[in-house]
């Protein structure tokens, strides 16, 4: 397909921010997973050992918080759910069973992507706040620490589960999606198939 026929989906800034979020999240996730379960402590070994992980995991989390905030400042308006998105979410099972064509509308982001974004944003807020508490145990009040040791892993598991869905959808499940987040472009057919409302919007101009 000639390049001029393709549609710009993600700007350079969006892609750079997305991959900064991805890398900082993965660093925090893998170092965190080493401390999550004794059977996974060897993962901490890959990242420099327990003491290094204990010292740097919070720094990775802080970096994640900063770039996630940057990403949110760009995307949070686009992530608001409209009537089509609510319909999408009510019929999410159809999407999962590949029965959605002609049934579900989708703008630049579909209802599932938006719901995932809000779940990840909520997890990020909980992870960062509880992480700050766990970072400085010697000065934080005991009651707050007791809440943080529970909230931090709960939010971590929630966002990792979300990440598994996100990575699957963005790679194997929807060919072309990963390329759009690397090169920034999608084919017209791709846009019309997966984000028909967005396709109509950008081609109307």
């Amino acid at each position, binding site marked *: 397909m000639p390049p001029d026929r393709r549609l710009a989906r993600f700007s350079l800034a969006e892609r750079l921010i997305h991959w900064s979020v991805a890398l900082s999240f993965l660093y925090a996730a893998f170092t965190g997973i080493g401390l*999550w379960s004794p059977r996974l402590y060897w993962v901490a070994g890959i990242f420099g050992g327990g003491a290094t992980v204990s010292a740097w995991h919070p720094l990775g989390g802080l970096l994640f918080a900063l770039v996630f905030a940057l990403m949110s400042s760009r995307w949070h308006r686009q992530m608001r759910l409209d009537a089509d998105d609510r319909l999408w979410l009510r019929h999410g099972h159809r999407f999962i069973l590949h029965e959605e064509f002609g049934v579900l509308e989708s703008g630049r982001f579909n209802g599932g992507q938006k719901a995932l974004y809000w779940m990840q944003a909520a997890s990020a807020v909980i992870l960062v706040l509880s992480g700050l508490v766990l970072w400085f145990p010697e000065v934080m009040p005991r009651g707050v620490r007791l809440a943080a040791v529970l909230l931090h892993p709960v939010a971590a598991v929630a966002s990792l589960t979300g990440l598994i869905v996100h990575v699957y959808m963005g790679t*194997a499940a929807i060919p072309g999606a990963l390329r759009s987040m690397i090169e920034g472009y999608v084919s017209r057919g791709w846009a019309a198939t997966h984000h028909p409302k967005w396709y109509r919007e950008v081609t109307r101009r």
Partner: protein
Amino acid sequence: MSGALKAISATPQPGPGATRQTGTVAKLIDTSLCIGCKACEVACQEWNDQPFQVGAYAGTYQTQPDLAPNFWNLIKFNEREQEDGHLLWLMAKYQCMHCADPGCLRACPAPGAIVQYTNGIVDFNSDQCIGCGYCMTGCPFDVPKLNPVTKKVQKCTLCTDRVSVGLEPACIKACPTNCLSFGTRENLLAKAEARVEDLRADGRRGAGIYNPAGVGGTHVLYVLAHADHPENYGLPRDPRIPWTVALWKGPLKWLGNALLAGGVLGAVFHYIRFGPWKTKEEPDDAA
């Protein structure tokens, strides 16, 4: 050090000594005999080579407000006014309680950083400690303290180095009033019961033993003249492993692992069943 290990932090298997049948040791603190001389504090500092750092003065005889990374043995001086207006001045030595079910060990993510010996002593291994401070949250007695210089958490070892060669802990050795004694836990419980009988006969109707069941019992036992109000001595009334820590290290771990493994498996199965979503070559309105 003191025999085989019974439990090892962040290790799925019990320690190699878990099935051995050995007697356990304990420390008994008879608060009715404490005169607040602080010899135990000094002996602890001396034996463990801990430098004394002048802390905050809070207006009492108490050396400092709380335990510290380099200060593992503190006599708490408690002034309490009773309902009838009488003033109580209660002294109680405070240190690691060496719980039978240690919350610190449960919370620790670093394999081998916290161990429990078959004799009941709970000890920290600094070379395995990663300085995360989770033990401080897991401990219902708020005992472990993070050393800001070494980034290691420290606490009373029950002088495991002395005990392992047949000596009594340094604090016991220094006590001039027999307020402190060391021996098998069984013997000390019997001794404590006899002492409680004496105190009750003396009119101390609230006398009793402090050996909290919520942490499986402790290897530091107290005789309290007012056991009905342990908080008057600065001791928690009903210490137990915090439920958030128990939930986090118990059911949540399994639920989380199941969710993550299920997520990966679910994605693989979905792909095998449905394959990728089809994408149109060209939009329907393509000219």
